[in-house]
């Protein structure tokens, strides 16, 4: 009884989302439990999850030393220019120039220092350079949409790019992804590894998007939305957004000895 994607309407998908959110709300209220932060891996409205989610419960493991550490990245791994996606070609990309800045912190508010942040995104028309993207929107010869940066001593990062466009996908009929930037983070422990997406405030597609709505906790969803920050905007140059990220891990996160100096 699987409905083909082209016959699956937004109304049907939105009703599924609403029902799953209601069930999770009920589960949380009944048990006096918080809603999960991360999306359930089995999330029917996002059709590709159907055959790609484990059906067994995850097995609890105590992290060993390797899982409490992260690979070391540094300025030998990433060039400074990689944080500006608007200077990677001979000409300037089309679109709205933006600055996205923020801090990467752990669950105690300590900075995640000298760690790798990677981003990738569609161009201003909503088209990825990726060869499998078939959206009939123009590529921009001056925009690739890939950036990297190493966080500073305060966990800070700052990227200059172009505001990506919304784009269609084939989950259901007339499905559109809200504008987003994909982000990849390494924490101070590998257990804090995170890949996610950052969104822009006030997007009318939020309520309709099964990927954004796969997060069942509304407060957690909002944490993926950057906020406009006029102090980040630069006169005559770029619009500024601020987005802070928190990577919590197991309670026994390994601490570098020098953390004591910065406590």
């Amino acid at each position: 009884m699987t409905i083909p994607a082209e016959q699956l309407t937004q109304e049907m998908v939105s009703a599924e989302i609403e029902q799953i959110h209601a069930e999770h709300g009920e589960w949380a209220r009944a048990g006096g439990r918080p809603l999960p932060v991360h999306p359930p891996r089995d999330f029917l409205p996002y059709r590709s999850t159907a055959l790609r989610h484990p059906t067994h419960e995850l097995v609890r493991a105590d992290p060993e030393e390797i899982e409490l550490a992260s690979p070391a990245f540094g300025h030998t791994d990433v060039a400074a220019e990689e944080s500006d996606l608007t200077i990677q070609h001979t000409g300037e990309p089309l679109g709205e120039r933006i600055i996205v800045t923020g801090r990467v912190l752990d669950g105690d508010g300590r900075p995640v220092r000298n760690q790798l942040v990677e981003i990738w995104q569609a161009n201003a028309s909503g088209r990825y350079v990726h060869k499998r993207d078939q959206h009939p929107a123009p590529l921009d010869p001056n925009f690739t949409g890939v950036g990297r940066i190493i966080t500073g001593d305060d966990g800070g990062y700052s990227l200059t790019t172009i505001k990506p466009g919304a784009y269609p996908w084939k989950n259901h009929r007339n499905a559109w992804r809200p504008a987003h930037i994909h982000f990849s983070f390494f924490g101070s422990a590998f257990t804090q590894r995170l890949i996610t997406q950052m969104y822009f405030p006030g997007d009318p597609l939020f309520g309709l998007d099964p990927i954004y709505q796969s997060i069942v906790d509304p407060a957690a969803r909002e944490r993926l939305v950057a906020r406009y920050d006029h102090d980040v905007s630069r006169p005559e140059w770029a619009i500024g957004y601020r987005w802070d990220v928190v990577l919590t891990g197991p309670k026994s996160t390994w601490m570098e000895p020098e953390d004591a100096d910065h406590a």
Partner: protein
Amino acid sequence: MPESPESEFLQTPSQTVGPFFGYALPFAGGESVAAPWHPAAIRLHGTVFDGAGQPIPDAIVEIWHPDADGRVISELGSLARDGHTVTGFGRTPVDRRGNYDFSTIKPGATRADAAPYVLVTIFARGLTHHLFTRAYFGDEVDRNASDAFLDGVDPSRRPTLIATFDAPHSYRFDIRLQGDDETVFLDFDAESHD
């Protein structure tokens, strides 16, 4: 905004890696943690399958492991390979047939009473949150038998955590996201869900 002392630092939620990471996350030499001509090089390879037993063509796999003596490596160069430093971190997308193929070294155990393994992380389109598993080594029979974690895993599912010795210096570790023989995936953070 000023932070009040009570301000909470709440986990940022995960979102799928999506289908279009292929021009962004892979990097030159990502699959070559140790060059194949390294005297201690091993091959760690396998296929990622979905719940219908079909290979997944759009997953990306990361590995992370200590050195041959079980020490965590803190050398720079996990991304910009210099051809000889072994950093312990690798990343590779699967190919169109769902296969991934790393060249690395066999790590040591980080604890005297534990078995050595490689931490494996899987991201994919259709996977809303990555999955962790561990590839233990099929030829470490004695150490695997006395490992406390492996001992606690349902014996019928334990083989999914073992990379099988399939050729000299080569181990095969298939990953099944769902269904019969579903891989054992790990939760390192169960306490915070209570």
